[in-house]
């Protein structure tokens, strides 16, 4: 177990005790789905791939993929991405 894993474990424990939301303490992505028309991903690290059927977004613990049709990036800001279109699924890789 490396020093980095230990630090992560301690931080998770602290976050659990203090009930601090994960996206604040652990830099986890917060994903909001609005029906099947909009996905808002907060705390992202940039996009990996963008086509009109797939959007892959880099996040702290890997990658989030949004599958769908006619996808468009409604809005991109420093820490927030808003994807619109007909959404079929959201998965973590």
């Amino acid at each position, binding site marked *: 177990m490396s020093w980095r894993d230990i630090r992560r474990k301690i931080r998770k424990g602290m976050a659990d005790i203090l009930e601090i939301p994960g996206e604040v303490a652990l830099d986890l992505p917060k994903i909001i789905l609005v029906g099947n028309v909009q996905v808002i991903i907060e705390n992202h690290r940039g*996009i990996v791939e963008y086509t009109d059927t797939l959007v892959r977004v880099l996040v702290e613990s890997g990658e989030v993929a949004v599958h769908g049709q006619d996808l468009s990036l409604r809005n991109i800001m420093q820490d927030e991405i808003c994807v619109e279109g007909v959404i079929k699924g959201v998965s973590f890789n």
Partner: protein
Amino acid sequence: MFVLRILAYLFGCVSLIVSGRTLERFINMANSRGIHLWDIKRLGPDRILIKTRLSGVKPLRHIARRTGSRFSVQERMGFPFLISRLRRRRMLVLGAVMFLAALYTLSSFVWFIEVTGNTKLSDHKIIEAVREAGLYPGVPKWRFEVARIEDEVLKKLPSLSWVGIQIRGTKAYIEVAEKKLPDVTEEKRPTHIVAAKAGLIEEILVLSGQAVVKEGDTVLPGQVLISGEIWPPDALQEGDEATVLPEGPRYVQAKGIVRARVWYEEYGEMPLVEEGCRFTGTEVQRICLKVAGHRIKIRGPREAPFKDYESETKVWQAPQWRSLPLPVEIISTTFREIRPYRVEHSRERALALAREEAEKRIRKVIPDGSKILNRKINVIYTGKKEPLVRVKLEVETMEDIGRLKPFKPS
């Protein structure tokens, strides 16, 4: 988000078509440098459409060079571009400014005057007085003071007790209240009090004038009750001839109260089987535009949607311009559905209804303030058997039957 869009519009924004192989990297780099991108759409395998602020275009050029992509401006949006476009069309701007100026100046005049509240005085006279005081169609609003005009109109038209002027938009609403003046011409002429209707005198009280009838007399309509002609007490019969003067009568306005019994009779009937038509309350409106003889339906059904109906038509004609009537009319037709009904009454119910009808009729005839002494209801039988109840209502009242009637002294 919405605020950001408005700001983007204010500072100007462009939509760009970016082509290249590593477009994701382009987006990430732009994002990490704080260039706001939105409405990103994929156009092809190596082409995307993006929107960004005007201030972001220069740094994007740098990013494009580093990611090996190219972009071209697709559309320019926002306020700065609007201004530069308008700079090329000076006349359009001039027209817009002139339009606004015309709207502003025209709305600072009074164009219409409406008078309400007058009953005796004509609109024309009031408008004339207001014009003399300084308010007329076409006067600028800063040229007059409402309070001063009100005062002046009051001075000019003594028959008004109050004038209120309200300026709403380009219309001046003049509201007046007239003084209630006693009729001067009637006042001076001598009058009789005559009977307004036939009756039996019960009580007579003379305040001025000379009583001609006495209690217990039966009078006919038009008969003089209290005369306005007062003859001097007859001195002749008493005797000495020296005092006999050729004295004529004195003329006064007769005043007094003459109470009499008056009889009224009214007839009411009610068929045992009542048939008729009644509104159901549903109505449909149709609006047509009539232009030069052609009718164009705007709203509502083409035909009346009911089997039985009553229709009411209102025609609104476009105002005449100079002497040319505009050939435009708006015709609004309201169809009200009616439904026939049939009710069978029992004999008692029909009697009550017939009586009610007679009462209703009689109430119209009897003046307010008269005392009802007696009422009698008679059912009339015609001898034949018929599905009808007829009643006769007789009412006896006590009322003032005096009516003023001016006369010419002979």
